[in-house]
């Protein structure tokens, strides 16, 4: 027969079972357990009554409050849109000059712009818009396709070399790879470029060789896009090669790579992902970006 015994600490009986020395007390379940079970069950009953809860074949109990989370979301989105309508309409329709004259709208530009830029643009252009190799430094305010707000707005809408039907299209040809220029010719053009550009970094002994020959090649091969004076051509998205700002780098090795293999950067289009108001906010926001102290950052 199972022997129950009294536990000296609690004064309770054991159940009389033993497993390798483990015994169990015959303590009744404390009242609080039932109280809380009752409370949580009552809460559940209430919630089931109020909310959509139990399946009924093809349908379900709707709940007394008529709540439906899909409708809740659409309603909340609608309300948010109406609340924002006060300024989104102006942001979409007013000319840029007028927006710039309105402190209230410009506050939206600086606050929302920072967030929009961080979520959509910073991955390539950097949190401060300072760019990086292959990704333009926007704070330098040197524009490949032009710096009027309308032009930037259009760039945002269609992107560059993007999948948009009306995308801006730009390409630096692969002069070396495609056999248009020989290696020595490329070296001469580079000398020519470095002789005429500001801020080319470390001087290189090869810079002195072939500057003149390079000038001739430039006029023949490059000027059609970059301009006779190498100051770029905004309609083709061809950069100014004299301003000292290099998208990929102005040292001889990088320039050689650029001329041999060509370049074709990619900027997505935002027409489907951002609203017109958001694109216009971003336009003004990037126009307001300030370069780092001491000129464009090189990071």
């Amino acid at each position: 027969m199972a022997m129950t015994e009294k536990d000296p600490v609690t004064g309770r009986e054991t159940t009389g079972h033993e497993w390798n020395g483990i015994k169990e007390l015959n303590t009744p379940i404390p009242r609080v357990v039932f109280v809380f079970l009752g409370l949580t069950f009552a809460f559940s009953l209430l919630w089931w009554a109020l909310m959509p809860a139990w399946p009924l074949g093809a349908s379900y109990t709707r709940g007394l409050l008529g709540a439906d989370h899909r409708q809740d979301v659409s309603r909340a989105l609608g309300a948010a849109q109406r609340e924002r309508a006060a300024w989104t309409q102006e942001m979409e329709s007013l000319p840029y000059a007028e927006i710039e004259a309105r402190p209230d709208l410009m506050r939206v530009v600086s606050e929302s712009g920072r967030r929009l830029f961080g979520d959509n643009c910073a991955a390539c252009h950097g949190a401060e818009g300072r760019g990086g190799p292959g990704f333009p430094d926007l704070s330098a305010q040197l524009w490949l396709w032009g710096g009027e707000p309308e032009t930037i707005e259009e760039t945002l809408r269609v992107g560059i070399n993007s999948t948009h039907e009306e995308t801006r299209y730009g390409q630096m040809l692969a002069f070396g790879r495609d056999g248009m220029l020989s290696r020595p010719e490329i070296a001469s053009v580079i000398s020519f470029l470095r002789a005429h550009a500001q801020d080319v970094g470390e001087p290189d002994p090869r810079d002195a060789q072939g500057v003149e020959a390079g000038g001739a090649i430039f006029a023949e091969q490059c000027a059609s896009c970059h301009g006779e004076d190498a100051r770029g051509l905004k309609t083709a998205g061809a950069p100014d090669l004299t301003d000292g700002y290099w998208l990929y780098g102005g040292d001889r090795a990088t320039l050689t790579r650029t001329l041999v293999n060509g370049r074709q950067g990619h900027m997505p289009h935002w027409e489907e992902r951002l609203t017109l108001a958001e694109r216009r906010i971003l336009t003004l926001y990037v126009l307001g970006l300030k370069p780092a102290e001491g000129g464009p950052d090189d990071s």
Partner: protein
Amino acid sequence: MIARLTRHERQNALIILGLVALMGAVLGLAGRSDPLGWHGLLIVVFAAGLALPVLGALDAPEPTEDRESAYYDDPTRLGILLSMGWAVFGLFMGVWVAALLAWPELTFVDSPWASFGRLRPAHTTGVIFGFGGNALIATSFHVLQRTSRARLSGQLLPWFVLLGYNLFCLLAVTGYFMGITQSKEYAEPEWYADLWLVVVWVAYFLIYILTLARRKEPHIYVANWYYMAFILVVAVLHIINNLAVPVSFGQAKAYSAFSGVQDAMTQWWYGHNAVAFFLTAGFLGMMYYYLPKRAGRPIFSYRMSIVSFWGITFMYLWAGSHHLHYTALPHWVQTLGMTFSVMLIVPSWASAGNALLTLNGAWRKVRDDATLRFMMIAAVFYGLSTFEGSFMAIRAVNSLSHYTDWTIGHVHAGALGWVAMITFGSIYYLVPVMWGRERMHSAALVEVHFWLALLGTLVYVFSMWNSGVIQGLMWRTYDESGSLSYSFVDSLVAMHPYYVARALGGLMFLMGALVGCCNIWMTIRGASVSVPQDDRPADRNADRNLVAGE
């Protein structure tokens, strides 16, 4: 270990290993132009590696006649060592991914295997299935025998379960590095590994049933209820969630039988009950044996343990949809998940309370004995993380916590504070018993491990709570114009200090585990004392010595 098998059993072991190797060879050949080929090779190498020692000892002396009159503890011993080995691997991977989140540039090898997405499942599988699973198998074999007073069923079967299970873990983890995954969290391995686990798991269940059937105690102890629920429900979850069709027999890739929101619901029904029956029920089984044993106290309330068992088993199965609040899942399913999660707090706290009240009369021991303190803290964290879980399951709360580090904090309050602590406590109790030593080599080192583990857990959990709440709030803060105030990157910058803290907390936890490994190693190397006379199964032919009373 092999010495305890008869020559006939050794031959059978070779046949089984031969079949496994054959299976590996077939997979390897069929999948030779696929990563599957490597797994075929791995299976062959695994089987061959085990066959070698068996072959070498084939003609060794037969075991003595009386082997049936001792408990079968070899599989438990190896299971403990494997568990600690996986712990070091899994925790190290945890520290690695934690460091990657704090310092992403640490991805120093420009190779797919070294990317966060492949390392992370190696961490979760390493700790949950490698560390936790081996500990569950090892302790369940021990508890089953001691509370049934019967030797484990089968001579080869326990080895098949333990080693087969580790083969599954190996396939899983090596697969991630090669990019083999079906992208279901905690169920990443592909079809062939899943099928293998089914075979192993059925064998596991069989051992349990057969041994219980031979028990010499009239009643089944509650720990065994929990272990059995763990085995049975995990089998059901595993099979259903992994229903899939392979692209071909020669490819690792398979496509799930479910799609869309049904797939999501099946996955999180699985995912939540993996938490419930793997990380909770199994470890509750562990707690119900080792805690009263170490404390030398009777269980506070027999009735409460039974009621919580059925409460937990019944309610958990409904709760999975709280992982999918505010998704395409219909609202009514979310309501059910939420309400059952709220009710779930009651049996959960009843279990935690039962454990803590069992310690009444043993609090001095808790103060002096770090092993028991591991178990006590585990019960506290169990209470804490279940309260937190029920709270987070409320939709309004979840709208803040979901997708944030708060979830990660909750996970690790449960994983470090509950799962790992109860395991370490049980292992510290078990190692001297299993290797016939008086006590652990160094009580001071157990103490060091305890404090490293506790501190590491607190640092981890507090930093993730902070980070999670900040993150959640930043994602829902609007400015006057009705636009979001912060970009996602802003929230990343805000989390950086917490990520650094978490990595340090994890490092402490890992160091604690390493200290534990040294201590266990020294204990095993130390001098043995004789096994107590009564630590053996009841005589085979004796009648059940207790009359089944109730």
